């Protein structure tokens, strides 16, 4: 079973040289720490920055320089600032190669829900609806089951949707799965997790073909 860092590390392996990547709040933010050495990646923050760097050294925080999670950050050489219209312009025109974000629920047709629990919790969609509606490639970092042990990988989302038929890949504490026209396709098992466990934890259609390898995480 993976912890949050493990999920982030596994997702980081999906990032390719030359990618522009948008990282959502939570686990996706951690991904930045594990981008493979030797490849060039530019991180986009939808509040208006290309070229996001690590957190600032203590005492060097700049209140004018934050990421989409409102965290103080830094820039890397070659960065650029822009306004929110251009930021979502480049997202909408598919210039961002990969979007990594969290989810409360994902359906086996690629629908995603992550912004609202009616009557209980409303965070708002922020930029998520724009990102999922436009991104070429969307990877979701999420927990496979909720605290009550119920699957969050469903035949159909029960919560209000963020976007439809958009998620391409999911990395959970248990598995890596692709979203295919036939449903979730199991690609890898987390270390020590059995196919049976994943079956039991998955509500939507699950495709298992041949031997499912265990993930390799450094």
């Amino acid at each position, binding site marked *: 079973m993976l912890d949050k860092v493990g999920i982030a590390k596994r997702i980081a392996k999906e990032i390719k040289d030359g990618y522009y990547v948008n990282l959502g709040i939570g686990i996706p933010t951690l991904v930045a720490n594990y981008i493979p050495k030797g490849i060039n990646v530019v991180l986009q*923050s*939808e*509040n*208006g*920055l290309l070229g996001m760097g*690590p*957190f*600032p*050294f*203590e*005492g*060097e*925080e*700049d*209140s*004018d*320089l*934050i*990421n989409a*999670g*409102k*965290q*103080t*950050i830094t820039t890397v050489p070659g960065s650029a*600032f*822009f*306004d*929110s*219209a251009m*930021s*979502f*312009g480049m*997202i*909408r025109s*598919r210039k961002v190669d990969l979007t990594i974000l969290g989810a409360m629920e994902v359906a086996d047709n690629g*629908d995603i829900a992550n*912004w609202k629990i009616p*009557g*209980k*919790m*409303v*965070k*708002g*969609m*922020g*930029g*998520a*609806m*724009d990102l999922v*509606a*436009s991104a070429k490639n969307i990877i979701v970092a999420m927990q496979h089951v909720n605290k009550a042990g119920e699957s969050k990988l469903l035949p159909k989302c029960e919560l*209000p*949707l*963020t*976007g*439809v*038929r958009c998620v391409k890949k999911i990395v959970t504490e248990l598995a890596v799965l692709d979203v295919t026209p036939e449903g979730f396709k199991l690609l890898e098992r987390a270390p020590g997790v059995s196919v049976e466990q994943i079956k039991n934890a998955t509500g939507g259609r699950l495709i298992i073909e041949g031997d499912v390898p265990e993930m390799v995480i450094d």
Partner: protein
Amino acid sequence: MNKTIKNADEAIKDIGDNVTIMLGGFGLCGIPENCITALVKKGVKGLTCISNNAGVDDFGIGLMLKTRQVKKMISSYVGENAEFERQLLSGELEVELIPQGTLATRCLAAGYGMPAVYTPAGVGTEVAIGKESRMFMVEGEEKEFLMEMAFDADFAIVKAWKGDRHGNLIFHETARNFNPMMAMAGKITIAEVEELVEAGELEPDQVHTPGIYVHRIFQGSNYEKRIEQRTVRKK
């Protein structure tokens, strides 16, 4: 062209009850602190506020929520504001949550004189309810878009880093965010700046918002520029 005024009180003097105001900023970054303080002091009520967030409980637009001056918020993210979420869930506050890019683009549409724009954000979600949708070809495939209308705001209040008396504005880092969009979108646009300079002191190539969009400008004071999530690493 001299659009300089004295301070925030003078800037908002004709903002009355029940008007629609845009407020720049993302989280607490790049918010018009001086004007918010002045609006709280003035006590105008029944406001419709268009702003990506609503500050936190004790700073930014949160201050205006606490005093119940806001009738309706149009935002993309409630997130960090417990009082906002409480008023929303209890129904005390009217809230229209819209995608962040839609928010930005509806401002752009107003500033660029485009009555409506098309975006795929929210297709198939509750955001699409009651909206016209339309298919367009994108990269060889049919794709659905929602028609979203340009905002129509009585006032836009923005915060810039530097400005001159013509109203030309330059923003700093990610404090830019929604400010240039909203500056273009208000019927009356008020800009508060950290540093007000003479005409000619800003490099014309570096101006982000040309003065034609700005009606009033003043140099603010006592900026707190509070940090919402202080994240650091060790040296």
